[in-house]
């Protein structure tokens, strides 16, 4: 029985951590001298990166990659639904207000 660690999940963790740390740079680019400024670009990028991370978690950590195709498609559909709901509510809020 081989119980040697597989490197793939570790690489995934490093990618997810890099995206998380990238948020800090995104934060700094959005603000000027400590004052937070509204930015649709930053909001959209933040939501899209979060969705990328969610898909990684589904596929790699929750082992959906090795699951039946139905579960793969269902989780992908869920990511799309979440994305549509978040971006839709954000932009519809902007349009209304």
């Amino acid at each position, binding site marked *: 029985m081989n119980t040697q660690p597989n490197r793939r999940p570790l690489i995934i963790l490093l990618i997810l951590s890099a995206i998380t740390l990238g948020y800090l740079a995104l934060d700094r680019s959005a603000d000027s001298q400590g004052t937070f400024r509204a930015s649709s670009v930053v909001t959209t990028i933040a*939501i899209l990166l979060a969705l990328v991370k969610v898909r990684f978690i589904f596929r790699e950590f929750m082992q959906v990659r090795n699951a039946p195709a139905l579960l793969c498609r269902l989780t992908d559909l869920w990511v799309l639904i979440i994305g549509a709901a978040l971006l839709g509510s954000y932009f519809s809020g902007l349009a209304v207000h």
Partner: protein
Amino acid sequence: MTDNAGEGKRDRAIPGQPDMWVLVLFEALVFTAYFAVYLYHRSADSELFLRSQAQLRPLFGTLDTLLLLTSSLFMLRCAQTARAGAHRTAMTSAYITAFLGVAFLISKITEWIMLVRGGHGFSSNDFFMYYFFLTGIHLLHLLIGFIAIGVIVYQLRGPARRSQELVETCAVYWHTVDLLWVLIFSLLYVVR
């Protein structure tokens, strides 16, 4: 985490019990509804939300995210080593997952205390209402996650009662706690 030779060839099975996946996808939809309402209201008074958001400490949010992502890695390792029959290694991974979860809990409570001491409570304004509601309900899920880890350890300790399906079911729940936090972090700390 194992790379057992048969893993790639094993039947494509649903990790854990299908009922847990129904719960996970339902929970994701419920949280999405909360997030959608938050983002919509945010647009109504973006100045207030931005001013309030500036009171948060992004380093706390980043640290919390890294803690939960790492805990997910160890939970995956736990499920995979249990499947490979290395129950002692699996148990160690479960303990590390719990430790990282406790670190998240301490970090979150510390941030709450700092905010409250700074005069920002649940009823301060709409942003902090959403902040404490979302992080609070997430923390409740984390506490349930500790029970899931307890179930895993209980399963792994007794050779007679070991159920790989139950271990994987609890692991799926823990990953959901991580997944929800990833969304909460970007919505509360990063969006502008």
